[in-house]
């Protein structure tokens, strides 16, 4: 599998990750999938709902709110997803996956990421060190959910 970006789209993602440091950022990747590859044609930055612990807890509770916040957790508001999905469907675009950042942590998926992942989607992860976006990687959940497989992330 591979996911292909236009340079300016990937730049937007990196800028979002840097801007939201030291919090985790998140957003949607839209475009077309054909068999073995995904072509991203648009990225939509979204709000990390963990900034609103009350509502986030209602939707997807964390075990320990004192240690799990927007600094090390992200949650996308399903209402935002619904809005973006509706709008993109009308324009013939599909949701290909999501991106999020790991402030001061490597661009590798955590167990928490895996437990919450869905099959098929691409999960793009950025490491951010001192407000600067560093590595960008992309991952797809294996069919048995046991691990993430890294996929090629390319520029077109």
């Amino acid at each position, binding site marked *: 599998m591979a996911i292909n970006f236009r340079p300016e789209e990937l730049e937007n993602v990196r800028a979002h990750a840097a801007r939201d440091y030291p919090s985790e950022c*998140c957003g949607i990747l839209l475009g077309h999938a054909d068999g073995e590859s995904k072509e991203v044609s648009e990225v939509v930055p979204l709000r990390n709902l963990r900034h609103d612990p009350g509502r986030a807890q209602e*939707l997807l509770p964390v075990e320990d709110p004192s240690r*799990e*916040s927007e600094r*090390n957790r992200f949650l996308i508001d399903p209402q935002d997803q619904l809005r973006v999905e509706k709008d993109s469907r009308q324009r013939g675009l599909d949701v290909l996956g999501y991106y*999020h950042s790991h402030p001061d942590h490597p661009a590798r998926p955590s167990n928490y990421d895996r437990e*919450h992942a869905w099959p*098929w*989607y691409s999960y793009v992860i950025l490491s951010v060190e001192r407000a600067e976006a560093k590595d960008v990687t992309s991952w797809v959940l294996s069919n048995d959910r046991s691990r993430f497989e890294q996929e090629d992330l390319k520029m077109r």
Partner: protein
Amino acid sequence: MAVKVVIPTPLRQYTGKKDSVEIDARTVGEALAGLTSQFGDLRKHLFNEEGNLRSFVNVYVNDEDIRFLQKSQTPVNENDVISIVPSIAGGFSIRCICT
């Protein structure tokens, strides 16, 4: 009464690539039961072993989250649209957030 159920991209591999399915149902629960009896492989992605909707799955009727309506008892009418919205969450290992 037919309602439309919108299928998110990761689950279309279980619905023969369909992005939406029409189901005869009077409630959200009936619609999801109809959907998973038609496409059996969908079941484990939507329901847990006790047969309840998984907490990672959000279901909307038009623009309303069924958590804040009558959950699976939420009535649906002709031309309503049920959307399955996967929960998207993540993060890295727990650490002390002292600052």
